[in-house]
Each structure stands twice: as C-alpha cells, then as structure tokens.
C-alpha cells in the first residue's frame, strides 16, 4: 500500500498523528531557539527547557478541546504551545516585548492566554493545582463540560496543596486531570531523595482514577489522557496520570556542569533511546504512515516558522516604561 493509501485507510487518525508529530517538533524547535536566545543573552531571566518531555504536553493537549483549560509550570513552553499558543507571541514574551502574550509583564514563566484556555504558566511549584481545580469547579457550576488539566513536575508532589486540591476534586467530582511529569529531578536533586512511598497511590488514596504512562510515547500518553479527559467530561470525576519522562537538558539553560547530580551516561541513554520525537517518527515511518522525507520537510517548515517567530520577537519593541503601572487592577 502506498503511504497515501495507508494514510487514507487510517483516516482521521493520521491527521491527528501528524499533528502530534508536528507539535512535538515545534516544541523542540522552539526550545532550541530559546536556548540560543538565552545563551546569546537576548533572553532575560531563566529558561527552563521542555526538551525530552514533548510527548506529554502534545499527547495530553491533543485530547483537549480549545475551550478546555490548562495550568502549566516554570517549564511551561511546551504546554502553552501544545494548547495552541503561537510562537511569535511566545518568543516576544520570552524577550519581554510589548507584543508578547503578557505584554512583556510575565516572561517565560508566566505565559497565559484566555483564548487558548491557558490559565497560565506558574512559577510557584504546585501553584497551578488549585487553579485548575477551580476552573473545573467553575465549568461544573456553569453547566459547561470543559475539562481542566493541571501539568506539574514531580517536585510538586512535595506541596501539600496538591493533596488538598485532589481531595476537593474528588469530593465534588470535578472535571480535572492532574498530570505529573516525573522527569526524575527537582532542580538538582533526584526524586527518590524527595519522594517517599509510591506516586500513584498519592492520588488513589484520595479516590482518584490513576494510570502510569510511558511519557516518551506520545501514543500512550494520548490514549491515557483521552480516556481520563472523556471520563472527566462525562462527569465521572478527576484523574491522575503519572508520566515517566526525562529532562534532556539542565534544570535551566545555565545549568551546565551537571555531573554532581546525574551522569552523562544517563543523559545519553535517554537521548539515544528514549527521544519522544524519534520514537514517534520511527513508528510513523515503520507503520508506513509517513516517509522520512515528509517528516524532514515538516521539520524544515517548522524551523522556518520558528525562525520567523524569533525574528518577529527580536524586532518587536519593549514596552514603554510608563506601562509599568497598567494592569495592576482590572
């Protein structure tokens, strides 16, 4: 069967698959450019890259509607893009420009956008957990069927408010999904030094449905998320997904000398064997749903789009200093 024929046979799923592939490639390309902007001292603040974890944001957000909600973290570029943010306004925000999503007031750690249901990246670890729960609460009270997804790193398992949130969500059967990205490190500390017991039990103890997923496999992520999202949307209550993954880079761009907390070999093993883009690309090709050439072309397209977005952001002006007093009060 030709690729076209196979694609036709697979129908809508192929479109979705290619959309997810493109989404992961876009995040990777975005983050590479953020890295570059940062190292060239064009991006102020800190840059926490999502490279290596793309399958999670993409697989989960592919299961969401545009009007569904997400909350994100300090490592939030991937979630924001996957939920529909456009790269030029994101880069502009990363550079602190007036054209950015938050008029330059938020920066990398605070991208927010009502139009795509993005309640905001959040620089307080665990900070999104109550916000997502609250959006789910509003959805239910307003008789909507919008679902809220709370993305967080396994570090947030240390914040008690997460348990308060899960308890409320389960008590009130709220349409919220807690997605724990266990990339094995909180900053410079291995999660085994910070996490006693067993992660999924921390959700099932409160009665939540829970599943553990290979976070490098976008198909697995998407399948699990779809199930949980539909369940929540139906009114069957909150869910918890433990995503096992890995942060390919440092905690932030400046975190270079990392041997004191993790080995080069470990990093290389993950990058070689467990790259979510390579895994999914390989699958697409082996299933005959796309050929290497097409994927390469897609990557080039994305690269061009990202380069243009970077140019847009670089050329965009900073906000006037007097804007500082605006937007404090609504």
């Amino acid at each position, binding site marked *: 069967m030709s690729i076209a024929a196979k694609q036709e046979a697979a129908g809508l799923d192929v479109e979705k698959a290619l959309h997810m592939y493109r989404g992961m490639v876009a995040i990777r390309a975005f983050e590479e450019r953020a890295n570059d902007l940062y190292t060239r001292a064009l991006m102020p603040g800190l840059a926490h890259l999502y490279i290596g974890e793309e399958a999670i944001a993409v697989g989960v957000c592919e299961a969401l509607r545009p009007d569904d909600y997400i*909350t994100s973290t300090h490592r939030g570029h991937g979630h924001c893009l996957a939920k529909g943010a456009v790269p030029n306004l994101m880069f502009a925000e990363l550079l602190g420009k007036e054209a950015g999503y*938050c008029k330059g*007031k938020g920066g990398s750690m605070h991208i927010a956008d009502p139009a795509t249901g993005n309640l905001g990246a959040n620089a307080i670890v665990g900070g999104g957990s109550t*916000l997502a729960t*609250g959006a789910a609460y509003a959805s239910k*009270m307003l008789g909507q069927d919008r679902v809220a997804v709370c993305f967080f790193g396994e570090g947030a398992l240390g914040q008690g408010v997460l348990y308060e*949130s899960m308890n409320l969500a389960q*008590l009130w059967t709220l349409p919220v999904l807690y997605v724990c990205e266990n990339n094995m490190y909180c900053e410079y500390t291995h999660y085994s030094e910070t996490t006693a017991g067993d992660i999924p039990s921390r959700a099932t103890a409160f009665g939540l449905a829970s599943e553990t997923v290979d976070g490098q496999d976008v198909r697995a992520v998407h399948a699990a998320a779809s199930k949980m999202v539909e369940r929540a949307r139906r009114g069957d209550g909150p869910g918890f997904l433990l995503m096992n993954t890995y942060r390919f880079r440092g905690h932030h761009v400046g975190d270079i000398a990392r041997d004191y907390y993790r080995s080069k070999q470990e990093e290389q093993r993950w990058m070689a064997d467990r790259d979510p883009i390579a895994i999914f690309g390989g699958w697409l090709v082996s299933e005959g749903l796309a050929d290497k050439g097409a994927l390469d072309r897609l990557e080039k397209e994305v690269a061009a789009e990202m380069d243009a977005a970077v140019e847009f952001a670089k050329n965009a002006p900073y906000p006037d200093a007097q804007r500082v007093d605006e937007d404090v009060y*609504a």
Partner: protein
Amino acid sequence: MPDTAIHPERSRGTAVREISYADAIREALAEEMRRDPTVFVIGEDVAEAGTPFKVVKGLVEEFGKTRVVDTPISEAGFTGLAVGAAMAGMRPVVDIMFGDFMTLIMDQVVNQAAKIHYMSGGKWKVPMVIRATMGATRRSAAQHSQSLHAWPSHIPGLKVAIPSTPYDAKGLLKAAIRDDNPVVVFEDKISYAKVKGPVPDEDYVIPLGVADIKREGSDISIVATSSMVQVALGAATMLEEIGIDAEVVDPRTTWPLDEKTLIESVKKTSRCIVVDEGYFRYGVTGEIASVIAEGAFYDLDGPVRRLGARHVPIPFAPPLEDATVPNERDVVALARQMCNK
C-alpha cells in the same frame, strides 16, 4: 431591578432600619447572590452552621449547597480553587473563619490572585472576595485573635476593606463582590453582634477607596479603622466633655487609601492620632501616619501619633488580653496630652 445607589458618604437619614453588622453582611451576600448567579460562598461550616459566628446563617436555605459550599479544613486549597473559579467565570466569596488563617493562604492570595491580572498583561481577571475576621478580646488566645490586614494591604493587586459599621459592611462587601479584582474584607468579630446601625432598604454600594468622616470635629483628627472606630467615637464623646472637639475619620479601605480626605482632616485640625487594632509595628498605622505626616506636615502642631495592638502575641488571660488592644482611655489620654488639656 432598580439601579444601585452609589453612596460614597455615610448614610444620613435615608436609613430606617437598625440592623447588626452580621446581618448587614448576610444581606449583602444574599442580595449579590440573587443579583448574580456566579456569586457563591465557600468555606468551612458555611452551610447549615452558617459559620461559628452565624454570620451567613440562612443562605444555604435560599441558595442551596452548590452555592453555599462547605469545605474540608483546606484553606489554601479552597482559596486557590476560588482563584481558578474566578478566572473561569465565577465570583467566589471565600470565608476564612479566623483571620489568623490568612497565614495559610498567602500564597494563593499574594502570589496568585494578586498578580494574575498583571502577569497576564491584563488578560485574566480574578474577581473574588476573601472575607476574613479580625479582632481580639474574645479570649481566643494567640492563634485566633489577630488582625492581619496590614499584610494584604502591602501587596499590589489586592484591595482591602475593613468596615466598622453595618452600613459600611454592607456597602463595601457589595462593592467588593462586584469588583473585578481580588478584595480582602476584614470583619471585626466583636462587632458582628455588638455593633448595630442604620442600613437603608434599597440596594447601594460604597466605592472602595472613599474614607468617611464618622464625626466632625475641629481640634484633633482620630483616624480609626474597624473596631477602633467605635473606640474613637467613644473617646470623642469623653473628649467633648473636657472641651476637645475630635474628628473621627474612617478610611474604610486601607487600599485604595483615600489620602485626600485624611490629609484634609488633619490640615483642618492640625493634630492626628491613628488607631488600629493590628499589631503596632510595621502595621497599618505606620503607612497612614506617614501619608498624613507627608501631606499635612506644615499644618501639624506636633507629630502624628499612633496606637495599635501591643507588640506581643495575644495572651489568653483576660487582664493580659485587655492590655493589648487600644481602648477609649488610651485615646483620651493621648488626645489630652496632644491638646495640652
């Protein structure tokens, strides 16, 4: 529905009923919940119990348990939930039973609610109210007696109301609920039942940021907040007897702060005491006194003086606790000294 009256001034003459501070608050909540289906009340024991102070008693009967929501003892959790719900279209009114538990929700209030509008470049709004109590002398000891309104007053993005009368409590709370920003309202526990006053029947709001002259006078300005307004008025009556005519000014909101009214009062009287029930040091009196001292410096006869709660955790024993909060005698003594009488 008739148009809402905007009353920047204290009700004078229009009111016919005398109701309690607690009743005024309950009325404000009920009216706003009727007016706007997105308003809901959330907190510990707010439904059938109507809180330990019974201040929201009866609401659950009218609005049901989906709009008067009992929670677990998870102040951070349900306050944060309210922030998210406010972003997503609701207007939550959070009940923090004792203002001392503000300690548990500062992250949700300060790092989230207060900043989300700004951090998002004005895109998200957080229209929510936090009702917390304040006030000592209930023998509730150090963890249930604090008046921590200075903390949120310090934080850009928050508004803070501290009503002293039923009229103000109702009008400010209604304004807070309609405000598109997070507003923290501190209610004095002792005033709930003790303070009664005229409240008009008709719908009204008091704009946030407008001080009220509770008593006019020419010799000295007593700027007083919350429970201290009653103390100041009592002191003013005593001072009148010895020929000191005190003006009592109630800022009603610590933020926005009606600097103009405060400064003008002191320009007129040339003397000023600021009295507040919060801890004295680095509290509300420091800011207000500074604003007045800057704005009325050349009219001042002497320094602006301050009274606040003693620099101690609130003790349990009655004779000790009574020594922690400013009272009428303290105000009178200071005013006499300042007026050389």
